[in-house]
């Protein structure tokens, strides 16, 4: 076990080192990550000003919406996996996946550690600007910090959201064993993700029938439910259920991702010379 932990740490350390090689790209990428928050704040301000400051669907006023949006940004910081699926399909297409097949290493585990390194590096620097924005917008969090158990549930959904986002997009990348190019599939996924995860707007402002359909999907667990739990939009007695559903989806995609990998490797043609 100790040897395995040491291996994981070495992989994580090297992935972190790799992230720090291109300093200008690293600096720009991390420090500018908070800019979309600012534009969204202005956008919602304009929407509410134009509609006379009414509540949307009777649930969200301007403060609620800003608080919600900031929290979905946190959720997406954990669950979004830019370049993961396309990177896997590129590795398959160009043959660089060979090293995972010939060396005694678990490709999915390796990529997970790589992604953890990516998040650790970027957000350890971006936490400054993020914290500044949250502090400037602290007035929008009318109810303040949630109680400790709710806070724990919020953290649990973020961690599971990270893992769910990873295994979901890794599974999409594994489709590269069949189709080589997955960019169109990714586009469709991102389209659904954008609307159904709650990133654009809270899904509970949708009509009842639409909300019930979307709640059956895994996508709300990537952004909406972490924010909703923090803001108290999910009743206390419902939180264990939501955590269980999220864990169920996570387990499903862990199994599915590995299944796709093992099936895909069987039909792999060894491209790239």
């Amino acid at each position, binding site marked *: 076990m100790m040897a395995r932990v040491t291996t994981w740490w070495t*992989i994580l350390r090297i992935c972190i080192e*790799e992230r720090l090689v291109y300093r200008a790209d690293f600096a720009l990428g991390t420090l500018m990550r908070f800019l979309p928050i600012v534009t969204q704040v202005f956008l919602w301000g304009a929407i509410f000003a134009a509609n006379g400051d009414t509540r949307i669907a009777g649930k969200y006023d301007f403060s609620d919406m800003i608080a919600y949006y900031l929290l979905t940004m946190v959720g997406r910081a954990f669950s979004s996996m830019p370049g993961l699926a396309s990177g896997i399909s590129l590795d398959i297409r160009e043959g660089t996946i*060979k090293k995972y*097949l*010939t060396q005694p290493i678990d490709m999915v585990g390796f990529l997970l550690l790589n992604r953890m390194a990516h998040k650790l590096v970027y957000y350890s620097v971006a936490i400054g600007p993020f914290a500044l924005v949250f502090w400037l917008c602290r007035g929008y969090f009318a109810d303040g910090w949630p109680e400790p158990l709710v806070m724990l549930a919020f953290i649990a959904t973020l961690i599971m959201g990270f893992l769910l986002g990873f295994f979901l997009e890794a599974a999409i990348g594994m489709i590269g064993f069949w189709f080589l190019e997955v960019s169109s599939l990714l586009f469709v996924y991102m389209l659904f993700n954008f609307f159904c995860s709650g990133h654009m707007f809270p899904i509970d402002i949708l009509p009842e029938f639409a909300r019930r359909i979307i709640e059956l999907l895994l996508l709300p667990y990537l952004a909406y439910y972490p924010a909703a739990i923090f803001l108290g939009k999910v009743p206390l007695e419902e939180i264990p259920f939501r955590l269980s559903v999220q864990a169920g989806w996570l387990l499903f995609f862990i199994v599915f991702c590995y299944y796709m990998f093992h099936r895909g*490797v069987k039909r792999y043609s060894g491209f790239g010379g």
Partner: protein
Amino acid sequence: MPMIEIQGLTKSYRVYQKPEGLWHSVRGLFRRQYRDVHAVRSIDLTVDEGEFVAFLGPNGAGKTTTLKLLSGVITPTEGTARVLGFTPWKRENDYRRRFALVMGQKNQLWWDLPAQESFRLHQQIYAIESSQFDRTLAELVDLLDVAELLGRPVRELSLGERMKMELIAALLHSPDVLFLDEPTIGLDVVAQHNIQSFLRYYQEKRRTTILLTSHYMKDVAALCKRVVIITGGEIMYDGSLAGIIDGFGGQKIVTLLFVDDNVPSDLSRFGEVFDVQPPKMRIRVQRSRVAEVMAAILATYALEDVSVEDPPLEDVIADVFNRASHDNGSGDSTQPNQSSFTARTR
């Protein structure tokens, strides 16, 4: 027990055939034509411990596909293979810890980091004990003379330097079997020589079983006693390098040095005159007629010197490939190899 045993190993692909042109690209959206490519056709091979075997063959013959099957990168269509007692495509960690695959011009090291970081990662992945790792790394770095390059990002190394680092990474865990796919491709003469010297020394010292594919005859001549020729996915020869020339070299080269620059012009009746630089002339003569031709020339002309030698290995191999391609239907690997040169003389 042999280190490598292959029986009836076959790998076929279904490949999309797209004729040239925009119309065919559009047509391909709705209807596609496919062709079956038989990259490896039912090959049998046994390699014992410590052997250094060269795989030769024209492009598309099945050399790299065979290495990929033996390293577990791809799964065969039919047949079996056992390497170190393992089935390669099951990709068991116990097997993956005992072999290494190095492909020329393919990079497995971290591109943006110094090679030493990749080596440290390999130490963990292969569970190499610390003192063993330090000893092996020091030895390999010294043999390949790359001590000053360890701290440089891999992207800043030349091709030859990167190849050395790839070899070090592959050998850190002291594999029992090493698969080398054109390790010197694209390297200059000096770098090729360095890699050859290193591989020869390493193999002699460690008795590692090595399978090497290469298009450079100098690699093969310098390193391998045994040569396997693959064409059209089938093994057509398995034996010594000298045996190739004896078996396939149908001609000898006779070099004549005349006493003066007045070289005769009627020697084409003895063979193909291909090089005339008075007073020297070179003729290709059928192997079976050498004695007769020599007797006739010596009896007729005044010569200062004469020599008879085998054609260059590259010419013999090229001739073998060309004849096999011709028998194979212009290199069409969908057809079985009808070559009459199949010879297993090991």
